[in-house]
């Protein structure tokens, strides 16, 4: 059954369609569509809609916000940027605070200096000066290639020290967005100097911090977690209150398919919570359980479990997320400071602790109860499907060169015939993913669960797995025999026909499984 909800079916460009140079075959789009995965029919009350944002798209929004603030408040672009970063890119909040108490917002953002002098670094050419960083006295003459650079606030350091200061801050992280004058008693923003003092490479990094700061401030935008991917995904409609897990699955431009809700790779039919529990379980079985439990928390932005490294409460999620947050309250680090009671304390946490919201100990006890043996049973099956899927995904990339081209040469196939094979591989990959998570689902079924339902689940899982194994061996092993020179085309066509129907069957079995899990195994 096809639903007309486009977001639940694979997009046409999700997997690059096999493309050969001659554009002869008008291949049957509809047949191809319907055999790529399946659609969830009915059920979901809400619509979820996504759009993909490239680095350039994000930059355009950043620029729009900057120019809105700078023109409205008559401040420089650099000052506007500092205000935006400092206030979660909330333009109306900045307007409000600015017009209710300009002096206050200027002070908290380090914009105490008159605008006319914030043009950036000024290189002074006369006299002597003392640099408070290298502690060197400089006399300006041409033999010393170190000149004085004065910040807008009037504080002078030597050019070398300024450059190192600015560049190190940028390499250090997003803190460079709030870079202040090194003079301890001053702390005026020196954002206006970044452009002239940062190296080309670090200017790019700074730009990256700016874009990330923007994306992190938006609840509806998330970066794609695939390594090296610069795209972000914006959720246009749907707040998750009534949506099913699968509604939040979205395919990035880089072809990575993720769950927007928890940022893990797409994981239907199980929900985000099960995935998080399972991943934690898996990590903690691999290492010292208690230590991990006491020292890991999910990143509030991307939901990946990350470890507390040192004593410091300032946590930074690894790339690509790079979100900085407070270990105690898991709130964004950028909001810590005066508002949360200064550097020393996190009021948010103190408050929550009073309300007993933190039950680390409870989790530890819960984990210890589960017997290792039972876990191992499910883990092994989960993992073997995971590995199998990984291999299928890799094979899929090489499918044209390794198999399709040969089949096409030997048996003179049309595009739509070749599509049958690609579709079968895509189906196998998708089913491996579902099967993998169905084992996590099975693991979390309570011991005292309704026996009839449990049987029903195991029956559906068994059927699905059986057809999948058949299809998988057909496309992985049998198919190869038909790529050799002189293979019979008649036999190949018989196989192709089998593949076509088995793909369809497999899809149906898995559809049943997914539907049953979504309905809580009501038969």
């Amino acid at each position, binding site marked *: 059954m096809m639903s007309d909800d486009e977001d639940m079916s694979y997009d046409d460009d999700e997997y690059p369609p096999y493309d050969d140079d001659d554009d002869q075959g008008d291949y049957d789009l509809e047949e191809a569509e319907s055999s790529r995965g399946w659609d969830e029919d009915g059920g979901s009350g809400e619509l979820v809609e996504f759009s993909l944002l490239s680095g350039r798209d994000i930059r355009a929004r950043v620029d729009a916000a900057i120019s809105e603030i700078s023109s409205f408040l008559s401040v420089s672009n650099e000052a506007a940027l500092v205000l935006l970063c400092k206030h979660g890119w909330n333009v109306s909040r900045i307007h409000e605070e600015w017009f209710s108490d300009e002096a206050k917002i200027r002070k908290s953002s380090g914009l105490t200096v008159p605008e006319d002098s914030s043009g950036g670094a000024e290189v002074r050419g006369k006299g002597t000066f003392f640099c*408070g*960083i*290298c*502690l*060197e006295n400089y006399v300006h003459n041409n033999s010393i290639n170190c000149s004085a650079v004065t910040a807008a606030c009037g504080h002078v*350091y030597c050019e070398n*020290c300024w450059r*190192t*200061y600015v560049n*190190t801050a940028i390499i250090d992280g997003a*803190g460079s967005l709030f870079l*202040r004058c*090194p*003079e*301890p008693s001053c702390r005026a923003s020196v954002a206006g100097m970044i452009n002239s003092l940062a190296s080309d490479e670090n200017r790019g990094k700074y730009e990256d911090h700016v874009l990330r700061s923007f994306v992190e401030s938006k609840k509806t935008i998330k970066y794609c977690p695939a390594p090296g991917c610069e795209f972000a995904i914006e959720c246009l409609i749907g707040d998750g209150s009534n949506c099913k897990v699968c509604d939040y699955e979205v395919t990035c431009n880089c072809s990575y398919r993720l769950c927007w809700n928890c940022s893990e790779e797409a994981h239907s039919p199980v929900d985000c919570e099960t995935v998080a529990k399972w991943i934690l379980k898996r990590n903690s079985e691999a290492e010292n359980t208690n230590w991990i439990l006491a020292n890991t928390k999910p990143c509030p932005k991307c939901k990946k479990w990350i470890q507390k490294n040192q004593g*410091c409460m*300032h946590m930074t999620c690894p790339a690509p997320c790079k979100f900085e947050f407070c270990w105690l309250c898991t709130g964004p680090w950028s909001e810590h400071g005066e508002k949360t*009671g*200064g*550097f*020393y*304390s*996190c009021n948010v946490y*103190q408050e929550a602790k009073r309300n007993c919201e933190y039950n680390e100990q409870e989790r530890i006890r819960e984990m210890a109860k589960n017997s290792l043996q039972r876990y191992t049973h499910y883990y092994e099956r989960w993992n073997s499907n995971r590995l199998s899927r990984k291999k299928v995904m890799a094979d899929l990339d090489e499918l044209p060169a390794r198999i399709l081209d040969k089949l096409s040469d030997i048996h003179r196939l049309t595009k739509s015939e070749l599509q049958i094979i690609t579709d079968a591989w895509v189906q196998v990959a998708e089913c491996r993913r579902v099967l993998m998570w169905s084992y996590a689902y099975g693991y979390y079924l309570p011991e005292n669960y309704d026996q009839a339902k449990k049987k029903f689940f195991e029956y559906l899982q068994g059927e699905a797995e059986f057809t999948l194994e058949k299809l998988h061996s057909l496309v992985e092993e049998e198919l190869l025999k038909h790529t050799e020179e002189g293979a019979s085309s008649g036999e190949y066509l018989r196989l192709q026909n089998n593949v076509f129907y088995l793909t369809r069957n497999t899809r149906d079995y898995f559809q049943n499984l997914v539907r049953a899990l979504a309905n809580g195994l009501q038969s």
Partner: protein
Amino acid sequence: MQQSRARLFKEYKEVQREKSADPDIQLVCDDSNIFKWNALIKGPSETPFEGGVFQLAFSVPEQYPLQPPQVRFLTKIFHPNVHFKTGEICLDILKNAWSPAWTLQSVCRAIIALMAHPEPDSPLNCDSGNLLRSGDIRGYQSMARMYTRLAAMPKKG
């Protein structure tokens, strides 16, 4: 590394030159390692630390002064922001509020200021922090004074 060495050497010369500039601070560099320093600071007056002399140990990173030195008390001290067992200090300028314009000398001054103005929230020494937070100033002062006498004053006799 080269830069940090040069900068520390400057600080060393400065300390030699102005030995008597700040009578409350005495900074000494390790004979064989310019990245290791010790300091003796006087407890600020009108605090329970008055009359005591406290020893600090500095360990300077190679990225100094872009990164802050690690400082801890070697002398036992009862203070909310100093770990009672390890002497570890919680001070913003030694962490995220660090600026390369701070020197070892000015860090010592900041620590003296911290001794006079403890921050009882999120303490490293909970007993001490709790006394202050519950408003038991006298209890805090008497504990702090006792430890100053036990650990930071020359033994009589």
